[in-house]
């Protein structure tokens, strides 16, 4: 099976299926978000369009597609058009390296984590450009906040990932997943969530900030900035921003699962060297279950916590998360050099 045509065909098929499923999760997620927030607030949520309201996202999209496509006066036209794409494309691109099943990913890179981190860092350009090009003071403030917030939280996030990479001694995401699997009843304890709890917590919270979700959605801030960077966007341009946010959520959750929650590995089931269809389905299914659990956590948190104030956000970022993740990194390094196996997992 070394025929290059066959390999290209397989790669294309993988890309189409994985991206297709990824983009179909987005409307599902929008629906779940609206239903879960309704339950939290003792409401019912959308339940009219289709059975139990499942077609509501479709109705939303139709509505958005038929809206007038406005460009505000004095807007920087090309940057204004580019901004939604710059939010959406990196989020989708970053998903290419996340393994959703046994060695199953759109693009196999040896530098998985680094590629993902580089690409997802681009999304801040979209927010900043959107805020800048809209010719609106609120949007500009939103874009400014987005840049400041994402840059400061990216540092903490990167430092927490480095701690994982140091113990794993690889940046290959599949290899990181393999190292998190162990036989036995307590195999789950091999997950980096338990091996590197500080890094996991810092990463989780930084992921909230990176994806602009409450309690860190300072860039949007409906109350003060009337939507922030996307105030001036209508129709499908707004929809692109919106989808970018949700895809970024999925990507970040996927990364979180891969790095900290054992990825596609199925607990108590040996990782097969030559996976059959059943093994594959099992691993993809288990990944999906974890993905939806994390997405639920995202939504749950969003509708629980109020938004942080800007100064609180910056204080937490620079005075808590960066020192904590630096200390964690230092501790991991010392433990690695001295070979303290009781403290960190060493390969």
């Amino acid at each position, binding site marked *: 099976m070394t025929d290059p045509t066959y390999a290209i065909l397989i790669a294309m098929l993988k890309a189409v299926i994985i991206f297709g499923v990824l983009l179909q999760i987005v409307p599902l997620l929008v629906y779940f978000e609206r239903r879960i927030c309704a339950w*939290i*607030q003792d409401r019912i949520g959308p339940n009219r369009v289709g059975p139990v309201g499942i077609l509501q996202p479709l109705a939303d999209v139709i509505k958005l597609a038929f809206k007038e496509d406005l460009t505000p006066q004095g807007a920087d036209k090309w940057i204004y058009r580019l901004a939604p794409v710059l939010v959406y494309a990196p989020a989708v691109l970053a998903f290419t390296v996340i393994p959703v099943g046994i060695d199953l990913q759109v693009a196999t890179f040896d530098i998985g984590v680094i590629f993902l981190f580089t690409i997802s860092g681009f999304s801040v350009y979209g927010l900043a450009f959107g805020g800048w090009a809209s010719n609106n003071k609120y949007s500009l403030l939103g874009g400014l906040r987005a840049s400041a917030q994402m840059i400061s939280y990216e540092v903490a996030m990167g430092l927490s990932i480095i701690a994982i990479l140091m113990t794993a001694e690889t940046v290959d995401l599949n290899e990181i997943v393999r190292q998190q699997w162990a036989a036995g009843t307590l195999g789950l304890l091999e997950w980096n969530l338990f091996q590197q709890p500080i890094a996991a917590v810092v990463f989780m919270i930084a992921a909230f900030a990176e994806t602009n979700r409450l309690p860190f959605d300072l860039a949007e801030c409906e109350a003060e900035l009337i939507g922030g960077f996307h105030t001036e966007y209508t129709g499908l341009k707004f929809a692109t921003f919106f989808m970018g946010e949700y895809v970024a959520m999925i990507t970040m959750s996927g990364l979180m699962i891969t790095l900290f929650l054992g990825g596609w590995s199925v607990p108590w089931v040996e990782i097969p060297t030559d996976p059959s269809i059943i093994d594959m389905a099992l691993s993809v299914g288990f990944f999906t279950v974890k993905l939806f659990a994390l997405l639920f956590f995202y939504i*749950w948190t969003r509708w629980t916590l109020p938004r942080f104030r800007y100064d609180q956000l910056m204080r937490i970022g620079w005075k808590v998360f960066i020192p904590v993740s630096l200390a964690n990194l230092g501790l991991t390094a010392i433990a690695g050099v001295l070979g303290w196996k009781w403290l960190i997992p060493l390969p």
Partner: protein
Amino acid sequence: MANHSDASEENQKRKTATSDPREKATYAVPVAKGLINTLKHILRNEPNTIHYPDEKRTPYPGYRGEHRLKRDELGREKCVACFMCSTACPAHCIEIVAEEAPWDDREKRPRLFNIDMMRCIYCGMCEEACPCDAIELTPVFNIPARTRAEKIYDKDKLLSL
């Protein structure tokens, strides 16, 4: 300026801070408490929603909806066109034109009695002011119309309600 706001912020914190030192030290405990609280709401799942067009709530007694004019036992309108209601009306939505009554027991009756339901604030002052108990607010609140003109109710409509 910055120092001043910092100081007042500190005062605010001191006032609102709980006695539990763990809550002062970190956000973790309140965040966890909040998450448990919202999870309880999800699991309990007792929405307060009334599915409006399918199920309608019964208004409480004394609910102030749209008006009607009453008739007496002989089938005549009770209204004697005294203008008390239109005088009392804070929204000036009642328009009355009086004419001489053909009956012996009263001098006047309304020739025109229009209420602009779009202007009415449903305060019930007209009902309070009426000396003859002729105007009344019903619990009906959900009569839609396609034009504003349809929501100006005349005497016949008010009497027929």
